[in-house]
């Protein structure tokens, strides 16, 4: 027996959470981004974010991922992968900010996180699928949706910023 033991049940190292963030970034890059340069860039930035969580590099990855989507045509499955990856990266980066790499994390402690991720994913994927699978309009179509969307984004920003205070 080792001299000193802490028994917390099934657990993983804090490093695993950071490695998972890198793995998610690498997987998303491989699935969404055909250009090798962007793939390598994404992985390197993700590694930097994992090593130095306070640098905020993990959120840089979130902003680089849309480049991959913008480079190609609109595709529901690519969007679904990107939505899952963006959310997972954000959650893992948030955990890495507070949980030291050398700590042990009980799997039971991650249960609320997993449940919340699944709930948010369920709503996000359904809404995204409904929007993306809608038939494309011909001509002016629903051009009016652009200013409405802009207003919605502004409203969302105001709500989030006020609640964050």
């Amino acid at each position: 027996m080792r001299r000193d033991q802490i028994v917390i049940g099934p657990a993983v190292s804090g490093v695993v959470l950071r490695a998972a963030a890198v793995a998610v970034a690498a997987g998303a890059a491989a699935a969404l981004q055909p250009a090798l340069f962007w793939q390598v860039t994404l992985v390197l930035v993700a590694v930097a974010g994992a090593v130095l969580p306070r640098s905020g590099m993990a959120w840089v990855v979130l902003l680089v991922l849309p480049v991959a989507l913008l480079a190609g045509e609109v595709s529901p499955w690519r969007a679904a992968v990107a939505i899952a990856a963006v959310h997972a990266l954000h959650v893992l980066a948030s955990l890495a900010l507070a949980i030291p790499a050398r700590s042990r994390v009980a799997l039971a402690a991650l249960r609320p996180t997993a449940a919340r991720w699944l709930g948010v994913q369920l709503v996000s994927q359904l809404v995204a699928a409904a929007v993306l699978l809608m038939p494309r309009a011909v001509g002016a179509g629903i051009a009016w949706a652009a200013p409405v969307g802009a207003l919605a984004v502004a409203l969302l920003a105001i709500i989030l910023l006020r609640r964050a205070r």
Partner: protein
Amino acid sequence: MRSPAFVGAIGGAIALAGVGLIFSRPDVVALALPLALWSLVVVRPPRDLDDERVRVRPLPDEEVGVLSDEIVVACGAEMVELEIVQSSRRTRRVVVPGTARVTSRTAALHSGPVESTSVTGRSLDGDAAVVGDEWRHVVQRRAVAPPERALPALPLAPRLTGLHGSHEGSRPGQGGDFRDIHPFAPGDELRRVDWRATARAARRPGELLVRRTNSLSDASVVIAVDTADDLGEVVATWGTDDLERSGTTSLDHAREAARSIATAAVATGDRVAYHVLVQGGRSVRGGTGSRHLARLVAAIADTGQSGDDSRYRRTPPVPHGSAIAVLSTFFDGAAAELALMWRAAGHRVIAVDTLPDLDTSRLTEPQALSLRIVLAERDEVFRDLAAAGVERVRWGADAAVALGMIARARTGARR
């Protein structure tokens, strides 16, 4: 306290939605959705997460030398990050649910008082986006009883008292060996009349002779422990608090010696008192019996190194004619002064040298020279003690033999 993850989520959601709108890409706008939803779910008014809901309780020891404690966490947060320090030497960080029971097992490398588990923590809520303030430390202190060594014989006190011990005294009484034949006197029991001696030696009719025996008396043993130093086998660790690499320390020896002497003395019916030679140090008044021994063992197990500012040694009161065991490393001479004072007062004083066998490896040349000097000074202290009639025993593998030899060499005066 909210973590920067909020800024990342809100900023990311707004940026992604804006970029999607600018480029007319609903798939990019959809990327903002999970971040926005996450922010709405997690950005709740912060709950009162700083309730300190952690406590530590000792568990029954499963193995010899292993201390087990249970850390009970009952906090409203989703997760709790705990920082656990085991035996003041190893720090571990774990993340557990808000309601959890954690078992901490740590090996006791030394006897005496130890902080087996010290815990602090903070709550983590909403994917660790809401971080609570650090809790105050909760400490579980334990006292590890030292091992016990069988001592067949102990040096006897110079003065025996009472009529209820196991040592043969010089007074007439009951229980001891034959003393003399004496004319019957009022108060003598009739069953003590020695009829043969009366028939042979009575000089007048009606004169009776009784057979007298010695009384059994108890002795007074005082154990005085000097806790100024706690020096390990490895000299290179002296002056550090590294009790993991120090090996057996002088206080380990002192506690073991104190317990062994106390056990042996109580077993022979002697009265045993215990004193820690520091200002405000713990004292156990003289007594005998198994319950008193349990009190002594608890006091010995709770004896740790005194602070640096407690160089003053008080002089505990000791019964007249006691056998006093002074347990010390005898480096600074203060314990030796007490021993000399007690010896001058007529007590039988045994200087028990608790310094362990030294490992002088990894010492620099100046350190080795310094060690030689302090050891030479210590030898000088022992010479002074020997000149004053203080007997010396080195607490090592053959301590029981050495104590037995001293016990046989001089049995002490009788009263």
